């Protein structure tokens, strides 16, 4: 049963990943990418890692894809098609992809993977205490660093969106 679902998801992900890069309509390739991400979420559900599956759905499917769709909606007209890349670029990209696949495969096959008999579900509480833990293996420092970076990005976005109104010269125009 799990095997069948795994293969359905795997085939779905591969097919949609290929169509995502070959489709010449911009929004369609975004949607194919969405299906790939949903497939990844399905794999996470399959291995009982519900939290990561939901994160995958919220952050990637619900967040990033929506943002990409937004930008496509703003710049792209329905009749436009993406240009075909030059042959030399296609060849370079293909070689780059093959090198990437080679690195992945050698890494995967150079380590033995054991099937764990009795897996236990990771709960949200465990993830949370690990994420904010300052003991051994805790992630409090990267967590804080990332939150500061995000805060900086947020303030930067606000300043950019405010535009000229913040400068001293045209203060009267506010």
């Amino acid at each position: 049963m799990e095997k069948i679902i795994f293969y359905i998801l795997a085939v779905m992900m591969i097919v949609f990943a290929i169509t995502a890069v070959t489709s010449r309509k911009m929004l369609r390739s975004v949607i194919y990418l969405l299906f790939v991400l949903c497939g990844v979420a399905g794999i996470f559900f399959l291995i009982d890692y519900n939290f990561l599956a939901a994160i995958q759905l919220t952050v990637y499917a619900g967040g990033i894809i929506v943002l990409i769709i937004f930008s496509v909606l703003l710049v792209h007209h329905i009749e436009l098609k993406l240009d075909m890349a030059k042959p030399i670029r296609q060849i370079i990209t293909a070689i780059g992809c093959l090198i990437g696949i080679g690195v992945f495969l050698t890494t995967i096959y150079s380590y033995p993977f054991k099937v764990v008999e009795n897996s236990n579900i990771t709960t949200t509480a465990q993830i949370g205490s690990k994420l904010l833990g300052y003991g051994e293996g805790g992630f409090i420092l990267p967590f804080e660093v990332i939150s500061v970076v995000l805060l900086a990005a947020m303030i930067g976005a606000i300043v950019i969106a405010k535009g000229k109104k913040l400068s001293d010269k045209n203060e009267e125009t506010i």
Partner: protein
Amino acid sequence: MTSIINSSYFLILSTTAKESLSILEILLIALGYLTFFAVAGLFLVLLERRVAAWFQLRIGPNRVGYQGLLQTMADALKLVSKELTGTIKADKLLYNLAPYFVIITALMSLAVFPFSKQIQAFDINIGIFFLIAVSSIGVIGILLGGWASNNKFALIGAMRSGVQTISYELSVGLSLLTMILITGSLQLSEIVEVQRQGGWLILQGHIPAIIAFMVYMIAGTAETNRAPFDLVEAESELGAGFHTEYSGMKFAYFFLAEFINMFIIASIATTVFFGAWLSPFGITESIPWLGVFWFLAKAMVLVFLMMWFRWTFPRLRVDQLLTLEWKYLLPINLVNIVIMALIVWLNLTIKF
């Protein structure tokens, strides 16, 4: 394509919950849920029309069947038999895909609700988070539908809907998170268990819980794109908004999804704030099957509340909508979470 995704998801969901069930049983349960909620959605449409009539001192549909009970059934039959039209230069694939996004995400959320102690299709350990995750995908269907229609009104409607849903999702998530602080678990069955021992969460959390509930209802109404937040399909400005070009069954999917989403918002509120299937003061605790009645009764009261909003408040402008979310609801919510954390930390919750 989407049906495969849908069915595979349903299979995954059901297998992890109950290993012993066969595929046939899983499919039957899924089919039962789908049929029940499709019909329930139709009756919600009828309820909406009757409530609207009541608020406007009219009679409303009362000719088809007893008190118009079969009116929406007849409408649905009519919609099924109608021709499916579309614009010539539309992106056909995405145009046809969009309604399924909306309806499938709406139906997937229904799997996790505890309608009674026994009736819960999928008791996942991240319950609430799963609901938020799934409902965040629904907006993609609206964006796609609006863009692929090749119609500027539809596109404007879709853009508005995207802005609105992304903004208000934050408030929905944060107000639910406020209540999670009391329960300490995202699993819906455990949330109900906490309430069975110590009273409904809206009483346990008293002041911050009531604020969270109010924020949740406002944000929830906005997330379902209903009036007073229905800029997405503001008739006077945009025709029918993102579903202007849809007809027949595809239009019905959007329509049904809107009403099922309303029921979902009410059901989440019922589960998190009002004790799901628990009876008030435990009066019918000895009769477990009455849980379904209590759940649906509470959900219906909240649905009625949302209809009340719709027919009372005038529509907001876009800037007012965004001001309400980013300048009022979000800061209130963040402060509210801190207050709730303090209350839980100092053990100031009310327990019966």
